[in-house]
């Protein structure tokens, strides 16, 4: 799903996490009109599970931007963050083959919060390619 507005494309990719302590992989393609990827954000249908138990690697165009074991909580944001700042800025990176890959790991540690099946939402913000005017 993507929304194009103000020369920015906002896309949401969903990853289902349904096994306790497992590794879940998802691969998505950013919009063909995306010129540069500006930033990403992560939310979940169960924020507490993702916050306490989650870690992920994120690759864009086969390049690893976040390594394995990078905690999900470092990419999540709360209400005290202004809405237009709620994403992690990557700088203007070239989308290349437009492939975004997420490898999400549930730690399996149940001492803080017990596992339930949930969804991870990966938001990708990119700038819209300027169409040449004739």
């Amino acid at each position: 799903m993507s929304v194009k507005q103000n020369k920015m494309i906002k896309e949401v990719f969903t990853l289902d996490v349904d096994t306790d302590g497992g590794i879940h992989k998802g691969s998505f393609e950013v919009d063909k009109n995306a010129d540069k990827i500006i930033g990403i954000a992560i939310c979940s249908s169960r924020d507490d599970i993702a916050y306490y138990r989650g870690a992920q690697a994120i690759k864009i165009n086969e390049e690893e931007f976040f390594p394995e074991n990078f905690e999900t909580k470092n990419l999540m944001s709360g209400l005290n963050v202004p809405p237009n700042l709620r994403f992690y800025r990557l700088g203007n990176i070239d989308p290349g083959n437009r492939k975004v890959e997420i490898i999400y790991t549930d730690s399996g540690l149940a001492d803080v919060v017990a596992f339930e099946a949930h969804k991870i939402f990966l938001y990708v913000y990119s700038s819209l390619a300027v169409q040449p005017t004739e």
Partner: protein
Amino acid sequence: MEKIIVHTIRITRSFEKNLFQILLPENAESITGIAASCDIHLVNVTGQPKIQRESGYLHLFISDTGEKMFAQILHASYRIEAWEKIGEQHLVIQQFSWKTNFEMLATCQPVQNMVIDGFYEDRVGADVEEDELSYNVRIYLRLKMKQP
């Protein structure tokens, strides 16, 4: 070009002293950011004050000279209840204190040796049953890479 690497240490014993080494990529030029965190969470007892509890001491050293480049006292955090009631609204924990823009301590440490030595000493052990102690310490290093 920048790259982030994560080194994870698993602590399973009270007062465990853990010596470790972090191997840096060959084309790393300098370390531009350092952060560390641990995933031990305490349950707050209603009515009791939340006391800041140390979970351990972390030290990082430059391998060939032995100079200390980073030290931090890591703290255990209190588990936030999954749901808090405010007025008529139920709000999830996500809505309170988290922030995006994960920030590291900015440094400019040239990489001369591909190895960083580290030392972590657990301090939680005194108050926890030994068989219950199990947590991870994560060290994040942001590296500036040499141009290919």
